[in-house]
Each structure stands twice: as structure tokens, then as C-alpha cells.
């Protein structure tokens, strides 16, 4: 645990010290604000709950984009700069390295997402929504962020450069989403399985409803990709 915290703290420090973190935060907040203003608030009159649901739908897209962007540097950059050697020759387990990096990215992501809180609170100016919908929505964003970050981290461990990591992570996430569309083309029981594996099936939280089934999906998906990332790091020693 000590090593995990140590690595997470250093990584978090890197997000704060390097411009990349600020660029991603600025991009996410700008696009979130733009979409919220143009589509969620704009157009014909809506119920406040619908406005919130639209906000969380747009924020979901940006969550996946930022997840891949935040995670792309975690291993690929260290590989490019040669600093991964430091971690791999230290008395630290590969799983601790992966968890430390993941936790730092998740913490940074959570802080970044919290900065967008003023947007749903604006609904209170002319409307009324249940606070639970906001809390549920943000918890959902955190779970989706966790899955996106773990997929991005896996891609970062596979790739030798950050660009390739971002492209691979983006492709993996898109593939996960396309599973939902693909499910319509196949027969049961494959249809159910493919639909279940897609995050598209687990977006009920956008309405403020958190189901244990969705929580299990996001946590197990994140766990799976973290385990895969650990195996990729271990496999590097055989290369």
C-alpha cells in the first residue's frame, strides 16, 4: 500500500506540474460548458431533469475522451523517457505500479470533474432538480471515468509512444461502444453478452439512478483492464 500511495503521489505531482494536465482540464471544461449551453439549455423548453440528463450524456463523452488523454502518458511517457526503468528495478510489484498510476489519474480526473459542478447547479437558477440526480450523475461519471482510465492505462502500457497510446485507447473504447450496435446484428445469447459488455447499456445513472449491476460492470471492467496492464508490464521483462 505504501508503494501505491508513493507512486500515486508522484504521478499526481506530475499532473499538477506539467502543462498537459491543465490543457486537458481546460479542454474538458470548455467543451462541457459549450455543449451544456448549446444543447442542454438551448432549444425548446425542457424539464430540469432532462437538462441534467443531457448534461451527463455530453459529460460522458468528454469523460471518455479525457480518460484516454489523461492515461496515455502514464506508462508510454515513462517508456519514452526511460524512467520506467526506475520503477521496474525498484523493489515494487508490477501491480503496485499499475494501481499507483491508476489512482493518481482517477484522483486528478475526480478533481477535474468536480470543477464542472457549477454547470448542473446553474439549473437551480430557473428550475428545480433532485440533488440525488446530481450526486448519482457524478458518481456515474466517476465510474465511467474509472473504466476509461483503466482502458487508457492498458493502451499506454501496450504502446511505445503517447500518441499511439491515445489512438489505441480511443479505438478500444469505441470498440466497446460499438458492441452495443453490433449486438443488434447477432442472435441471442451473443446479443445479450455484447450488449452487456458495452458501456452504452450501463448509462442509467444519467437519470440519477445508480444500480448495483452498473456499479459491478464499471468496477469489474476497470479491474479487468488493470490486471491486463499488470500482465503487459510483466511481459516486458521477457522481451
Amino acid at each position, binding site marked *: 500500500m*505504501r*508503494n501505491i500511495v*508513493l*507512486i500515486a503521489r*508522484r504521478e499526481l*505531482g*506530475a499532473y499538477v*506540474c*506539467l502543462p498537459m494536465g491543465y490543457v486537458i482540464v481546460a479542454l474538458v471544461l470548455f467543451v462541457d460548458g459549450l455543449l451544456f449551453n448549446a444543447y442542454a439549455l438551448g432549444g425548446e423548453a425542457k424539464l430540469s431533469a432532462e437538462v441534467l440528463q443531457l448534461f451527463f450524456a455530453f459529460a460522458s463523452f468528454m469523460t471518455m475522451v479525457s480518460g484516454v488523454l489523461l492515461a496515455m502518458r502514464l506508462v508510454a511517457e515513462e517508456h519514452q*523517457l*526511460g*524512467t*520506467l*526503468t*526506475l*520503477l*521496474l*528495478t*525498484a*523493489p*515494487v*510489484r508490477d501491480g503496485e505500479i499499475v494501481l499507483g498510476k491508476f489512482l493518481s489519474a482517477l484522483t486528478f480526473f475526480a478533481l477535474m470533474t468536480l470543477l464542472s459542478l457549477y454547470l448542473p447547479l446553474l439549473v437551480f437558477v430557473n428550475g428545480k432538480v433532485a440533488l440525488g440526480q446530481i450526486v448519482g450523475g457524478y458518481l456515474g461519471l466517476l465510474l465511467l471515468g474509472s473504466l476509461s482510465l483503466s482502458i487508457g492505462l492498458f493502451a499506454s502500457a501496450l504502446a511505445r509512444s503517447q500518441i499511439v497510446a491515445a489512438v489505441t485507447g480511443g479505438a478500444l473504447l469505441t470498440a466497446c461502444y460499438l458492441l452495443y450496435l453490433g449486438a443488434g446484428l447477432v442472435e441471442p445469447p451473443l446479443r445479450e453478452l455484447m450488449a452487456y459488455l458495452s458501456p452504452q447499456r450501463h448509462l442509467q445513472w444519467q437519470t440519477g439512478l445508480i444500480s448495483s449491476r452498473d456499479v459491478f460492470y464499471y468496477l469489474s471492467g476497470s479491474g479487468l483492464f488493470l490486471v491486463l496492464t499488470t500482465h503487459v508490464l510483466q511481459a516486458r*521483462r*521477457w*522481451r
Partner: protein
Amino acid sequence: MISAQGLTKFYGDRCAVSELDFTIEGGEIVGFLGLNGAGKTTTLRILACLLLPSRGTVRIHDLDVVDNPHEIRKLVGFLPETPPLYAEMTVDSYLRFVGRLRGLGGARLRERLAQVVQQTNLEEVRQQVIGSLSHGYRQRVGIAQAVIHDPPVLILDEPIQGLDPVQIVEMRELVRGLKGRHTILLSSHILSEIHQTCDRLMVLQNGALAAVGTERELTARLTGSQRLSLLVRGHTEPLLRLVRSAEHVQSCEAEGADHGAPAESGLVRLSVTSSQDIRELLSRRLVESGFGVLELGRAEAQLETVFLQLARGGEPTAFPAPPQA
């Protein structure tokens, strides 16, 4: 302390290191020599538990690198070819991070940090951001991170690469200063560096061990002779006759002298090749014959010649490890 038996590493179908057998005793400084692609870095990476061997066994302090990598990493300090530095951190925060990563904490960390910063002369840049440091200082920080946990084994891959002459001298002093406390494995293709820093050499050729021994052993074994250099006052011709008639002398040449008369300064420099160490015998004979002996010693290193012969495929030689320190 470190032993390898049948150490082999494949990258796909390509064999990077083949059937290496060697033993390194505690406190030694051993230099890995070889041309690019000879397998130096691969061998060092296996010893640092960064790579796993494809075949063979490597043991450090009686621990196997495949079975006990976690324990071995506590015993080894590693400086790769490119120092693993986080440019955005200060020297102090970086070394604290590495120290904690290697299991130090509290008073012990503070104590080691102070020692290492002093040892590597990093006091004046301790609070500077690593990204702003010169190459020489970065290399020093690289050494500092490798020794912060006071490991018994230190592995340095090309530690003087890219340093200027002044920095090379400083780095040499630094590495020498670490001798005794650590067993040091050093790789370099800068021959003079290996010659001046290491106790023993391992020459790798195409992934195989071409030779192991001290520079003198390698030179003698490869050339089958020893070279002496003399500076003597006297006439060249009788001097050459006298030396050539001595026992075990294979050849004797005067450098830049007119053989018919003494050199202008009256001094003659001789280069003597012998099958044995004849320094004592030769000096006595010269003095008894009335020549003034100003200098008599082994000729300076022929390491370059030896290295080129071995690295390009000279006669394989093997020497036993020296007695334990």
C-alpha cells in the same frame, strides 16, 4: 557474490547473450567491454532484474534473479544508459522519492540523503529542478539514485557517456570513491575509462564472453609476452646488445635514437618485450654495466589492441577470479 551460469537471452529469434559463465567477488569493480550490440546492456539488465534470462541461472547474494527478483532489487542499484530522471522534480524531492521507493524512511532516509548528496557533490543543485541541470549533474543524480539505499551491488551502464573531459574525471573519482562499499559492474566502450577504473575486465563479443581477467592478464595472454619501457643514459648500441643478451628477452628496440652514437641528451628510451617479468634482473644488469637507469616499468596499457583483438574475435581466454576481497 554474483554468479552466472549458462546465461542466455533471446530477443525473438536473435540471441543477444549466449551461455555466459562468470563470477564476481564482493568489492570488485568489473568492467564490461564490447562493441555495440555485444550484449553488455542486456547482461546488465538481467542482473538488475529488468529482464528475465531465456536460459541459465544468475545468482546475486545466493538469490536467483528469476525466483527472487523482489529481494534482489533491494540489493542492487542500477544506473541505465539514460538516467531515469523525472525532469519536473527537484533533485531533493526526486532522491526522497527514490529512497522511499527502495524502502527507506524517517531518519535513515534523511541520513542517506545527506550522505549521497555529499558523495555525489549535489549540494549546490539540491533544490533545483532536474530539467534545468547540465548533463554532468544529471549523471550525478543518476548515480545518487542508484546508491541511495546503499546497495551492495551497483550496476552502471555507460556512466560516462556524453560527459566532457572534466566531468569524466569527476565521474571516475566518484566511481572509485564507491569502491569497497559496493561491488560495481560497469559497462563502457571507452577503453581508457575501463582501464583506469576497473579491477577486472569482461570482454563480450557477439553475446559471448571472449575473455575475463585483469588488463595485464589479457595483454600477456593475448600477446604471450610482457612489455617494458626503459629510459637509460648511455650509448645505444652497447645498450641494445646488453639488453638483447639478457635471459627471456624476446626483442628490444630503441625509440628514435641513432644507433651509431648516443642521443643528443645522452638518454635512450627502450622498448623491451620479454616472456617473463625481468625488471629486477634487467635493472641489476644495466647498473652493473655502468648504465644510468632513469626509468624502468611496464609499458602503458595496450588495452586498445587487446580490446580490438578480443572484440573482433581474438583467441578466447579465461582467467580465474582473483582471491576474495
